[in-house]
């Protein structure tokens, strides 16, 4: 800590001497000072889920030369996160902040960003809009429905009952898109496959997640997957009950050595690096950054022991097409589970189609309602 003080004073002297006080972060770089990058997580860094995926990538950024990473975990989506961002800037000199929870964006990131125009705020999942949101805010996200589609393919190829269970937090577009992609992937292998959904109501409700998992297995599901913040409970419950699972957010292979098939994982290193390097070189970082398998924003967990070779080959073939950008998941005709046509025949909604960001249906073959 004493060192910190000394460094800052020293740096201020040099900065003042070179007359570059105005652009603090830039001159800091010119003087060989590390770029301070702050990471804020809404949950625990070791949650086997959403936050762990971010923390793993932050650990990679930490090793980059000339970068100093500071982190705070379990920061609530209240004034707490506003004060955490301000503290990172005021007390630690951060010039790039990764606010990784969706709920941080409005109003918290927007409010603090207006106060500190020289700091760049990268938000995960938010929809940055030209003209509406400030230039020093950006949003990045990954098209993880591609991985869910592949997980669905694998799930259907090992399932005996042709019933999958999906434990989901809330019926919001991002979650519905994953459920639908998983189901469509499974149906591409076996059209009779159905996905049974239970919405728990919130992002982290371990008890309800366990109850939902058990109930789905009791109903005959022999593959479980989920979209909640920490898939730990679902994966462990499935393993205990002797059914298969596909993971989400990060790899849960360790928690289910027998039943873990594969999983849809984030790989935030790519977007993190892009943003860090832009800020480091003094360029305007991209405000809207998205990517799927092709850009390396998402990846599949290595296949588990229960996956047959044939299924691997089939999934890898589709994956190769996705990487080339030749595969469209939401290609009409698609019907929802009430019989209405939601994507007309001949309509192809590609990965980046904004229509998909407002998804409000479950496709045919999903048992459950919004």
């Amino acid at each position, binding site marked *: *800590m004493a060192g910190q003080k000394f460094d800052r004073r020293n740096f201020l002297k040099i900065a003042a001497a070179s007359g570059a006080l105005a652009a603090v972060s830039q001159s800091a770089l010119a003087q060989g000072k590390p770029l301070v990058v702050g990471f804020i997580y809404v949950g625990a*860094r070791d949650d086997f889920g959403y936050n762990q995926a971010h923390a793993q990538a932050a650990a990679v950024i930490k090793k980059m030369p000339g970068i100093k990473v500071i982190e*705070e975990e379990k920061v609530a*989506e*209240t004034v707490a996160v506003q*004060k*955490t961002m301000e503290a990172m800037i005021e007390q630690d000199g951060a010039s790039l902040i990764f606010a990784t929870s*969706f709920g941080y964006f409005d109003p918290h990131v927007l409010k603090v960003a207006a106060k500190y125009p020289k700091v760049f705020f990268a938000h995960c999942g938010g929809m940055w809009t030209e003209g509406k949101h400030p230039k020093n805010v950006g949003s990045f996200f990954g098209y993880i429905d591609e991985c869910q589609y592949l997980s669905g393919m694998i799930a259907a190829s090992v399932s005996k009952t042709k019933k999958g269970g999906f434990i989901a937090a809330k019926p919001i577009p991002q979650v519905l898109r994953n459920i639908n992609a998983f189901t469509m992937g499974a149906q591409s292998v076996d059209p009779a496959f159905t996905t049974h959904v239970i919405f728990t109501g919130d992002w982290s409700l371990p008890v309800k997640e366990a109850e939902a998992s058990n109930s789905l297995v009791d109903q005959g599901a022999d593959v479980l997957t989920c979209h909640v913040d920490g898939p730990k409970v679902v994966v462990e419950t499935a393993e205990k009950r002797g059914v298969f699972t596909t993971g989400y957010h990060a790899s849960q292979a360790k928690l289910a050595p027998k039943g873990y098939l594969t999983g849809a994982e984030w790989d935030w290193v790519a977007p993190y690096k892009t943003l860090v390097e832009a800020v480091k070189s003094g360029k305007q970082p991209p405000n809207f950054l998205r990517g799927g398998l092709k850009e390396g924003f998402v990846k599949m967990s290595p296949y588990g022991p229960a996956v047959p070779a044939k299924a691997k080959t089939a999934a890898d073939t589709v994956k190769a097409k996705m990487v080339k950008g030749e595969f469209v998941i939401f290609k009409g005709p698609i019907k929802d589970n009430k019989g209405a046509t939601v994507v007309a025949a001949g309509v192809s909604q590609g990965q980046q189609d904004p229509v998909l960001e407002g998804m409000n249906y479950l496709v045919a073959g999903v048992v459950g309602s919004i």
Partner: protein
Amino acid sequence: MNSTLERILVPLGAVAVSLLLFALFVALAGYPPLDVFALLYKGGFGSSFSWNNSLQRAAPLILTGLAVAIPARAGLVIIGGEGAMVLGGLAAAIVGVWGPVHIPLVAQIIMLLSGALVGAIWIGLCGWMRHARGINETISSLLMAYIGIALLNHFVEGPLKDPNSLNKPSTPPIPDANMLGLTPGFDVHMGLLIGVVVALIAWAVLRFTTLGFALKVVGGNPRAAQLAGLRVGRWIIGACAAGGAAAGLSGAVEVAAVHGAANASLISGYGNAGILIAFMARHNPLAIIPVAVLIGGIGAAGGMLQRRLDMPDATVIVLQGMAFIAILASEAVMGSPWRRIAQRLWGIEPATTPVAPAPVTVLAKSSTLEAA
């Protein structure tokens, strides 16, 4: 030893003891205790930025602390402040978005009052269940909190959802002009001023009025209170409603000063943190203010420990837990054994208790008031 002095010194001593225990814990975990303390101070109270940080974190906790402390005066343990808080926030958002008045000051007052009203009804209901049906208020308020949270989720994800709030279901935003500003002189929202004022009022009412005294009688011995002519049921429901109003008000402040809409971010645990604060403050509304600032400061400092020393968030939770237990345990040294030790050591006379005859007159007064 003077009893007021004792009431201040003993908890401070308890905090000191908990800090020593924490130092031991930190050292065992392999971190340098002195650096940790320096950062705790620096992050919580070391600069004007840190003070604002701590006060901002303390602001909502003052009100949720009162939500537990006021009913506690009537002998009730209410732990469901979270439910009243989120519903208060929801009410504030509803009148803020769809209310007829759009003069900022009026709209703000209406938002705050409706939040308080809904909170009062919610916890008041627990008081009524206790009085009319003999349902334990601790359990009922806890369960009601789950219902309150479910109602919030139902409304913001269903009938009241703003169609533009895709992945974070919320009510539509209240107009920017109607948002609460900052507490004058601080970089902290208006919730601080509101919390401090409400705490001072609660303290004054409980300390200096017959109202406060009657509540204490009800809390001390409901049977005796009844014999003295107090209508215990009304006092129980009233105390619950007053506590609920404080919690509802804190939810309204969250909406009107921070979020600008009601959504799941309102479920932030402030209501639960209020339980800790009220117990640490021995249910004294005045003491709630410094205790909330202490907890807020520990929260602010926790961030700094994470950033500078890479310590996990749980570190400050451990400190909080130690302080909580130490303060509760310090009750044991309060009063007679403590005085006896002091007497033996320094020959100080144990304080006599001259309060005994006083209540009778006041009680008579308040019971006549009640009868009238």
